[in-house]
C-alpha cells in the first residue's frame, strides 16, 4: 500500500510541475491564440539562467533574474515577432514559434555543452518523510509554490481589472478592444506570465530528483502538451487537473510496468499520456474544462 501511495505522490508532485508548464501553454494560447512551440526552450532558458547565475549572486537573486528574463523574452517574442507576422493566423504563429525554438535551443545547447549544470537549489537532495514514504523536498516546495501560483492566477483573472480584461480579450478580441481593453497590454501580460511560470517549472524540473540543466529539459516540456490539451485549451484550472492526471498516469504505468508490459508493450509510460489525451478528447472534444465552441451543425 505504501508503494502505491509513493507512486501516487511521485505522480502528483511531478504532475504539479507539468501543470505549471501546461498553464503557460494555456495562457499564451488564450491571450494571443499562439501554440507556443518555443515554450520548452523558455523553460530551459529559465533553468539555465539560474544555473549560471547562482554561483555568483546566490540562488534567490538568480531565481528573480530568471523569472524576469524568461518573462522578458516572452514579451519580446510577442512584440517583435508574433505581432509582426505577415499572415497573422495560428498556423503561421505556431511555425514561427518553432523557428524561435530552433534558434533558442541551439544556442542554449551550445552554451550548456557537455555539462549537467546544477541549479543550486537550497533544498539540495534532501527529502521529507511522511511515515515510510519519502518525498524529495524540492517536490514538496514545488507543490507549495504551484498552489500559491495558481491561487495568484485565480485572483488575477477573477479580481483584477487586468485579469478580467485578459479574459475578455480571449473571449472576443475585437469586442474587448472596442470596450477599451488594450489588446497589446493583455497579450504582453499573458506572455510574461507564461515566461514566469516556465522559469519556475524549469527550476523544479532540474533540481533534485533531476540532476541539473541539460538540453533534454526542453523536450520534457512537451510532456505537458497532453496535460494542457486534456484540461482544455483555454482553461488554467484545466491545466492543473490535466497536469495531475498525466503525472499520475505516467507514475502508475511506470510503477506497475512489470504487470502491464505483457498487455501494452514495453515503454508504455511514454505513450500513456497521449492515449489518455485522445480518449478524453473523444468523450469531451473541448477537453475536461475547456469552453465549448459555439459552432454546431
Amino acid at each position, binding site marked *: 500500500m505504501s508503494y502505491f501511495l509513493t507512486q501516487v505522490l511521485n*505522480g502528483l508532485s511531478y504532475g504539479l510541475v507539468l501543470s505549471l508548464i501546461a498553464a503557460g501553454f494555456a495562457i499564451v494560447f488564450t491571450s494571443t491564440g499562439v501554440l507556443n512551440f518555443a515554450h520548452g526552450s523558455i523553460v530551459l532558458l529559465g533553468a539555465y539562467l539560474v544555473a549560471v547565475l547562482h554561483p555568483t549572486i546566490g540562488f534567490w537573486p538568480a531565481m528573480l533574474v530568471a523569472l524576469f528574463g524568461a518573462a522578458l523574452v516572452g514579451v519580446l517574442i510577442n512584440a517583435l515577432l508574433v505581432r509582426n507576422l505577415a499572415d497573422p493566423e495560428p498556423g503561421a504563429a505556431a511555425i514561427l514559434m518553432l523557428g524561435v525554438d530552433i534558434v533558442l535551443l541551439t544556442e542554449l545547447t551550445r552554451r550548456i555543452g557537455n555539462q549537467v549544470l546544477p541549479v543550486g537549489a537550497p533544498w539540495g537532495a534532501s527529502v521529507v518523510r511522511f511515515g515510510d514514504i519519502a518525498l524529495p523536498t524540492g517536490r514538496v516546495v514545488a507543490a507549495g509554490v504551484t498552489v500559491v501560483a495558481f491561487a495568484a492566477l485565480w485572483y488575477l483573472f477573477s479580481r483584477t481589472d487586468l485579469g478580467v480584461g485578459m479574459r475578455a480579450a480571449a473571449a472576443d478580441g475585437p469586442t474587448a478592444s472596442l470596450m477599451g481593453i488594450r489588446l497589446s497590454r493583455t497579450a504582453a501580460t499573458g506572455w510574461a506570465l507564461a515566461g514566469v511560470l516556465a522559469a519556475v517549472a524549469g527550476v523544479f524540473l532540474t533540481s533534485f530528483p533531476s540532476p541539473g540543466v541539460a538540453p533534454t529539459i526542453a523536450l520534457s516540456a512537451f510532456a505537458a502538451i497532453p496535460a494542457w490539451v486534456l484540461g482544455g485549451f483555454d482553461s488554467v484550472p484545466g491545466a492543473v487537473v490535466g497536469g495531475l492526471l498525466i503525472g499520475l498516469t505516467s507514475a502508475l504505468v511506470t510503477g506497475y510496468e512489470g504487470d502491464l508490459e505483457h498487455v501494452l508493450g514495453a515503454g508504455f509510460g511514454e505513450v500513456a499520456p497521449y492515449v489518455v489525451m485522445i480518449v478524453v478528447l473523444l468523450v469531451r472534444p473541448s477537453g475536461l474544462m475547456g469552453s465549448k465552441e459555439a459552432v454546431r451543425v
Partner: protein
Amino acid sequence: MKHLPRTCALTAAAVTMLSLAACSTTDPNASGEGGGGEGDVTTGSGVTDSEITVGMLTDLSGPFAAGAAVQVTQTNAYWDQVNADGGVCDRDVVVDVQDHGYDPQRAVTLYRSMAPDVIALQQVLGGPTSAAVLPLAEQDDVYVGGVGWTGSALQYENNQLPGASYAIEAANAVDYLVDELGVPEGGRIGVVYFAGDYGGDALAGAEHAAEERGVEIVAQEITSQTTDLSAQASALVQADVAGVVLAAAPTQLASLAGVLATQGADVPIVGMNPTFNPSLLGSPVADALVANAYSITSVAPYASDAPGVQAANELYASVAPDGDVGWEVPLAYVQGELLRQALEGACEAGELTPEGVVAALQESSSVDTDGLLPDGLDYSQPGQSPTTTVYVSKVGAAAEAGLALLEEFSGPSAESFSYGG
C-alpha cells in the same frame, strides 16, 4: 488543359528518344578500377599520391554536440600527430568532418556526398544516424568506425567496434555485481534502460547473464527525456533489488542514484559506457554517486595509467588545455589508432582502397592498442563482439575525470554470450 499534355507528351517523347540513343549497358571501365598509384599500391576513393582522406560524420549541433566536439578535436590532433611522424603509406591523412545533427536524413545525404572522396569513415556518431548509414556503407564496401557499441552494428562486416559491445558490458555488469558487489544468488538486479538499440542490447546481455548466474532481472524502460526517475526508483526499491544496471545517460544516473539514496536503498549502480560525466560531481547527488556508482566501459577510462591512455591525454591537453575531459578523449584517440592500423594493413597488402581497408579489418584477429582497449581484439568474426573484456571503474571525487579504474574484467557470462545464439 489542352496544351500541357501535348507539349508534355512531345517533350517526354523527345527526351525518351534522346535517352535511348544515349543509353548503354556496357561498362567502359569494367576493367581496371581506380587510377594507378605510385609504386605497387593500388589506390581508390579518397587517396591521392600525397593524401588519404577519411570522413567523420558526427553530431555538432544536436544532443551530443559537446561530447562530439571533444572527439573531433582529439581526432584531428591524432592525425596531425600521425602526419608529423610520417603519415600512413607515405601520405598525409586528412579528416573531412561533417555534422549530421543527429538527423538520419542529413546523415544519409552527407554520406552520399562524402563517399566518393573518402577511403573510410572514422566515425558515424549516434544510433539512428549510424543505423541509416551502415547498410549504405556496407553496400559500397566502406569501413565505418566509431558508431558506438550497439550489438546491432556488429552484423555489418565493414564496421569496427571500439571494444566490447553493450551486451558484453551489461553481462559483465551482472557478473561483477554477483562476484564483487554482493548480489546473492536468487537475488534481484534492476535494469533501467533506454528504449532503443543501446538499451535493448544491454538488456539482452543482462538477461543472458541473469540466467547464467541465477539472479532475477527487474527491467524498467525509459527514454532520454525521462530526467526524474522517482517512479522507476520506487519500483526498484519495492522489488527489493540488490543492484542496478543502468543503460542510459548521465542525467539518469544522477537522478536514479539520488532517489535511491533518499529512499534508503544503499545498492550499487553499474552504468554502461556513456552514463557518467564528470560534471555530475558538482550536483547535489555527488555523495550518492561516490558511494554507489560504478562505470563499465569498453575503452580504458581517462584515469588509466596505461601508456596509450597517457599518450591520448597528453595529446588532448596540448591541443585543448581548457577542454572538457572524459571518456571521449581516449575513445577518439583509439578510434584513430584502429583506423590507422587498418589503413596500414591495406597499404601492406597493396590495396589502399575502401575495399582494401575493410579486408584488412576483417583479417585482424589480434589488435593491440597500448592499453586503450583490451589487448587481442578479434575482428575476424563478424557478428560477435571483438572482446569480452571491459574496464570497471568506481566514481570518485578525487579521480581524474571522476572515474578511478578498479580492474579489467571479463566475467563468465560475458564470455558465454554470443549474438544470434
